């Protein structure tokens, strides 16, 4: 890590301005948060593109620029492999997992585990998931602390505290809506900064061909060698990241679950995932890794000497003019804030939904739970800070990999088997989680005995990656074995909770038969009708119902005509009986629904059928 402070006053002014602007932006959206549904799920009203950008901003943590640039400098373009192994989870995500959690109105993973299995499985998973998320917060905070140490000369802990306070503040006030909206901005900025840096490098070297020629040949492969080197082999990265970490992000990461539940409909999840994984994730892979490739090319061109761990910051400083470098630093800050805010909000959701509401103070008002959620957000940031000294002993890549490989496999395996296998029993799920965690714990003591057989000849240096494979196999074996000797749950209990019963979940969500006939959107004008107060229905003309292929009782979604609001001003309602003919082009709406959607009298809105 370089010791001296780099960058100029203009850079730090730009960075500070950005920091304050994002903070203000997040705080502004506090006005959209009046209930726990808003605080945790943003009112379930956002468009796919908004969630795509916020997902990519969350995936790209502050550690990403440093971590992937470091390995990009050492090993070349195979640093992107972590971002290119997500697609394989896409069918499970959009065809099984999102329909189940969305339609069954599952608010947290432990809640799913209780519905699918039993209470003790829920409790075991709650502690592991909280450990996973709080650990993640710690890793993010330490990275930014280290970066600010490099840039400003601050103590690592000081940088971590400043950032944690800022993020906790806007999550405290704005909840999920603030998280999504700030992540949109931060996602765009970090992509522009990273890709802009890559474009500047290509220009600097006189074209892509010259840049490519400056990289050593062994740096030009999509994957690292199958089982070498031990701390960056393909198989190590694949089992730790492609299976354990990506699986955990998709299926057990509360932050992502809350993001999926913020979508206006399950159908939007399809577009969201395609945009996120197929378009934005590869761009993010280039944006976060290119600092290392560029630094390597600069070194090979004889222009300056660079250490691997400083490759991103030094390459950016070398290529960017004053002010622009500040923008790149702002992107680095953006990456941290956009991940930490999601995690803090997620801890709050699990604490309220899985500990406070069921065990400590059940039956209280939503206002009470909202207050607890906000206080928990502050505490989560504090706990993350407390973990910073723990992770300071390892490299960022090592700490992150070791942590995810050790914590995620048991819960991930239980969710995966529970979701796709009807026969999988509650006793098996409990043993998978608890027994898997115990075996992984033992693997830290008897590493050679337990992880050694799965190291593909790489030795102890690979254990922090290969522990994920051991964990998945151990937890899976326990789960399958116990299932075969225990009695399965009755089919009726599993409706809506396992693959093959998604239509049952849809029926439950709507409270009746889902209407899946394809229809079009209609444009109407709002008329606030006091007689509809507290009814959550709208009255629209028969012609509009026909165009939407909707019937009375169907679930509709009304949003502001400006698409770029992304659903910020919108509401879900049910179709009431069709209006009289003199109410042509009008949508009668209750005052409460109009207030929720921030609609005014005479507002032009777009209405579509959800189901």
């Amino acid at each position, binding site marked *: 890590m370089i010791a001296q402070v780099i960058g100029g006053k203009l850079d730090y002014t730009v960075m500070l301005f950005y920091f304050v602007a994002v903070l203000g932006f997040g705080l502004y959206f506090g006005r959209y948060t009046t209930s726990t549904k808003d605080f945790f799920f943003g009112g379930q009203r956002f468009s796919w593109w908004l969630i795509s950008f916020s997902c990519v901003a969350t995936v790209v943590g502050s550690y990403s620029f440093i971590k992937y640039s470091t390995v990009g400098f050492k090993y070349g*373009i195979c640093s992107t492999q972590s971002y*290119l*192994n997500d*697609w*394989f*989870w*896409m*069918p*499970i*995500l*959009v*065809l*099984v997992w999102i*329909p189940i959690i969305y339609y069954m109105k599952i608010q947290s993973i432990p809640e799913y585990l209780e519905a699918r299995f039993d209470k003790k499985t829920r409790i075991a998973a709650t502690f592991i998931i909280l450990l996973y998320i709080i650990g993640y917060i710690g890793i993010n905070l330490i990275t930014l602390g280290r970066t600010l140490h490099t840039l400003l000369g601050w103590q690592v802990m000081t940088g971590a505290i400043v950032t944690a306070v800022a993020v906790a503040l806007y999550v405290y006030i704005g909840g999920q809506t603030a998280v999504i909206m700030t992540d949109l901005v931060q996602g765009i900025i970090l992509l522009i900064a990273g890709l802009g840096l890559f474009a500047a490098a290509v220009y600097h070297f*006189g*074209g*892509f*061909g*010259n840049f*490519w*020629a400056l990289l050593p*040949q*062994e740096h*030009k*492969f*999509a*994957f*690292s*060698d*199958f*089982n*070498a080197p031990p701390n960056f082999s*393909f*198989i190590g990265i*694949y089992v730790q990241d*492609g*299976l354990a970490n990506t699986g955990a992000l998709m299926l057990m990461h509360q932050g992502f679950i809350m993001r999926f539940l913020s979508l206006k409909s399950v*159908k939007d999840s*399809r577009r969201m995932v*395609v945009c996120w*994984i*197929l378009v934005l994730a590869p761009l993010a892979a280039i944006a976060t890794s290119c600092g290392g490739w560029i630094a390597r090319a600069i070194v090979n061109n004889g222009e300056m000497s660079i250490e691997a761990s400083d490759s991103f910051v030094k390459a950016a400083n070398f290529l960017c003019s004053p002010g622009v470098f500040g923008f790149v630093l702002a992107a680095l800050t953006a990456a941290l804030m956009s991940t930490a805010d999601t995690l803090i909000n997620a801890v709050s959701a699990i604490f309220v939904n899985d500990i406070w509401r069921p065990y400590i103070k059940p039956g209280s008002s939503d206002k009470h739970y909202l207050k607890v959620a906000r206080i928990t957000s502050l505490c989560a940031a504090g706990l993350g800070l407390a973990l910073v000294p723990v992770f300071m002993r390892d490299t960022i890549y090592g700490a992150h990999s070791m942590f995810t490989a050790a914590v995620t496999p048991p819960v991930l395996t239980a969710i995966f088997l529970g*979701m*796709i296998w009807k026969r999988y029993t509650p006793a098996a799920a409990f043993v998978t989680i608890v027994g898997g965690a115990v075996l992984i714990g033992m693997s830290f003591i008897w590493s050679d005995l337990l992880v050694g057989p799965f190291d593909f000849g790489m030795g102890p240096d690979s254990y922090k990656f290969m522990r994920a494979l051991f964990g998945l196999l151990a937890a899976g074996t326990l789960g399958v074995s116990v299932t075969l000797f225990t009695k399965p749950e009755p089919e009726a209990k599993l409706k809506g909770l396992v*693959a*093959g*019963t*998604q*239509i*049952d979940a849809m029926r439950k969500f709507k409270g009746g038969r889902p209407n*899946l006939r*394809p229809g079009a959107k209609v444009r109407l004008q709002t008329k606030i009708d006091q007689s509809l107060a507290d009814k959550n229905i709208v009255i629209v003309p028969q012609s509009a119902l026909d165009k939407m292929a909707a019937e009375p009782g169907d679930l509709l979604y009304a949003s502001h005509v400006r698409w770029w609001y992304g659903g910020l001003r919108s509401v879900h309602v049910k179709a009431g009986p069709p209006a009289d003919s003199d109410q042509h082009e009008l949508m009668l709406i209750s005052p409460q629904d109009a207030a929720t959607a921030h609609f005014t009298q005479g507002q032009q809105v777009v209405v579509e059928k959800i189901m």
Partner: protein
Amino acid sequence: MLRVWPIVCQFGVGAILCLIGIWGGLRGKYLNLKTREDRRLLVILIAGFLLMLAVACIFTFLAPNWANGESI
């Protein structure tokens, strides 16, 4: 072969994961191939898989041999 095994492993295990997801959708007819929208989703899933495979192959068998600017 050391360069080929990563492709075999990632896309082999990946294909199994994809098939599990598609099976989970088809079972219970949540993924209804009689509707155009669902057929399109299936095409996108397969196209995405093949696109990733193509990129991996290009940056394993072709790109490393692009020695300098003239050959690109």
